[in-house]
């Protein structure tokens, strides 16, 4: 039992935020969880959230790993996804007749591009010791122009049935395809962590790269590897996003998603300066952000002020969950406990507990 509570303690923040949002939504309308069937697929608030957050979830998994190992953030993820999806679209369009094979090959090709972009950022960070944010700033600045060139200076249209099915639903399957793809991706990541020591290595490097090196783990390799995984994440996210949109808009595709991805990592209870991490937390964090966005819309906040509300909510959240407030709360809780103990227990033991508590404060 104790072990269970310990392993879930870092999830307290994301889960409590999510609960709060659910309560607000339930007050607004009791049918929040209602799911209906529309054209043979599930429809409702929950499917909408799962559908809308799919790219964010996938990217925040990669962001968690990069953050944990390199102690910094990759801000080029949206741009990388735009480039990988541009390659995918060009391959599909040049293939003429679009079959499932074309889509799969196009996707694998975009994964190769993703790996290349990941390797580019990863090399800068691991070998040349450039700060991750600065390293990824290069792609962030120039990447959309690259995607624009790949697109042939236009926004190519991806109007084929298979792409449409990937972006919406496959006939006969009641769940929207992006949701299925996200679940499959999460499962693959889970298998990766169950079967390898990746978690241990990444955390070790993130906590102290020098100690890791002395223990026979090469920090360069591990950091490079996390960027490669991020590359795959961007390729998958780009694939989902472009099939959802049905055309490749190099200017706006997944613009500013890195902000939400970093936020998802933070809400997930992860430290943004590396070390121990929880992918579960980040995934819940990503869904929470999606839920927050939709809740603000549901509350019919004016479009001009909606961002301010989001910012205020997040600031409150971050302050409440900050170490300073946590320590303060813990102390307050301890005091209440000792005070209670002093009421119920004999005087001697009460004295000793207060003594210990005071010593801890020192």
């Amino acid at each position, binding site marked *: 039992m104790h072990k269970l509570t310990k392993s879930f303690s870092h999830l307290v923040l994301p889960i409590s935020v999510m609960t709060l949002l659910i309560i607000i939504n339930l007050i607004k309308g009791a049918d929040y969880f209602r799911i209906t069937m529309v054209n043979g697929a599930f*429809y409702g608030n929950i499917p*909408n959230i799962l559908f809308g957050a799919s790219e964010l979830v996938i990217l925040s998994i990669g962001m968690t790993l990069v953050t944990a190992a390199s102690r910094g953030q990759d801000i080029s993820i949206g741009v990388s996804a735009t480039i990988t999806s541009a390659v995918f679209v060009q391959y599909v369009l040049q293939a003429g007749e679009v079959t499932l094979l074309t889509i799969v090959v196009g996707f694998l090709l975009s994964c190769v591009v993703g790996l290349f972009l990941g390797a580019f950022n990863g090399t800068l960070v691991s070998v040349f010791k450039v700060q991750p944010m600065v390293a990824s700033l290069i792609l962030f600045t120039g990447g959309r122009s690259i995607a624009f060139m790949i697109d042939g200076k236009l926004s190519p249209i991806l*109007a084929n049935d298979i792409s449409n099915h990937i972006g919406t639903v496959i006939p006969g399957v009641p769940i929207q395809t992006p949701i299925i793809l996200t679940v499959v991706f999460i499962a693959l990541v889970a298998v990766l962590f169950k079967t390898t020591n990746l978690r241990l290595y990444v955390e070790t490097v993130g906590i102290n790269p020098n100690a890791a090196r002395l223990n026979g783990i090469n920090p360069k390799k591990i950091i490079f590897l996390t960027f490669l995984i991020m590359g795959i994440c961007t390729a998958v996210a780009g694939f989902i996003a472009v099939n959802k949109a049905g055309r490749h808009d190099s200017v706006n595709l997944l613009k*500013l998603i890195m902000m939400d991805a970093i936020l998802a990592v933070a809400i997930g209870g992860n430290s943004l300066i590396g070390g121990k991490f929880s992918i579960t937390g980040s995934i819940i964090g990503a869904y929470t952000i999606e839920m927050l966005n939709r809740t603000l819309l*549901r509350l019919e906040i004016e479009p001009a002020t909606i*961002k301010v509300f989001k910012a205020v909510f997040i600031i409150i959240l971050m302050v409440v969950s900050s170490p300073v407030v946590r320590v303060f709360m813990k102390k307050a809780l301890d005091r209440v406990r000792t005070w209670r103990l002093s009421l119920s227990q004999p005087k001697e033991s009460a004295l000793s507990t207060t003594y210990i508590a005071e010593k801890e404060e020192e």
Partner: protein
Amino acid sequence: MKKTLGILMILVILGSGVLFAAGQKESGLIKVGIVNLPPEESGYRQANVEDMNNVFSVANGYDAKQTNTLDNSEQIAAAKGYIRDGVDYLLISAANASGWDDTLKSAKDAGIQVILFDRAIDTDKANYQAAILSDMAYEGEKAVEWVLSLGLDKINLILIRGQMGSAAEIGRSAAVLDAARKGKLNIVADGTGGDSWSLEEARKVVEAAIAAGKDFNVIYAQNDGMAQGAVQALQAAGISHGKGGKVKIIGFDFNRFALRNVQAGYWDADMQCNPRQAAEISKWIKSGNIPSGIVYQEELLLTTETITDELIAKWGINADPGKGVITR
């Protein structure tokens, strides 16, 4: 004898030089300096830059130089360079509306005619010759006029705005807000696609309205991408739209994919935002009759009835998915 020959030769050389120079001047091209934003800024800009290249070509009698950048200071530096080069006309679409006063004045002192296109500059009217712009308020009015002409019993409209505070958003929203104030229509949901005029955000706005059980019959999305996102939300919820459907859809900007959607009856209308100012400017220059002050362009609104292949080919921007292809 030798002396006279020498003098003659010199005279010939000089004379031919003068003749040559005069000849060059006569067959000379009109020198134009164009300061614009880069094509990757948007589909609009891509069409705009392409149009500038096509019209201000050597074949049309122009010697045009073009600088495309998002950086206002780089734009100003480029404009100053063109002034030094002694261009005849300077065409500017400014990244930033302010900071241009000195540059425009020095162009004026050098006798260069400045024509602004697409974007206005906050400066005294005397500092430039003419400006050819899209009137966003006019676009909004025309679109709202179409909405009101639909003959719906009661208009319950979802307004999806672009980047808050942008000229396009303010202009295109104004007419809707005004009509709502006058009781001509009812805004049931008011949302925004955010700074990137985002398809996903627009989709969420409509999904939120559906979740709240709102009844609506018009979606007014301030660009084509957001209209597309809104329709995706309707599709997922199984709500009919387009020709003969319950919800009427209007987008802006004339992307060819949007026009094809209108043509197929998947959407109902699209309002133009014309990026092709070059032909008009060229006409002014060639006739020597340049108007002064701001000139607004005529812009079209196309519906399922009025749309034709020729109009799509002529006025559309961006990639064409082909006739009958719906971009969902």
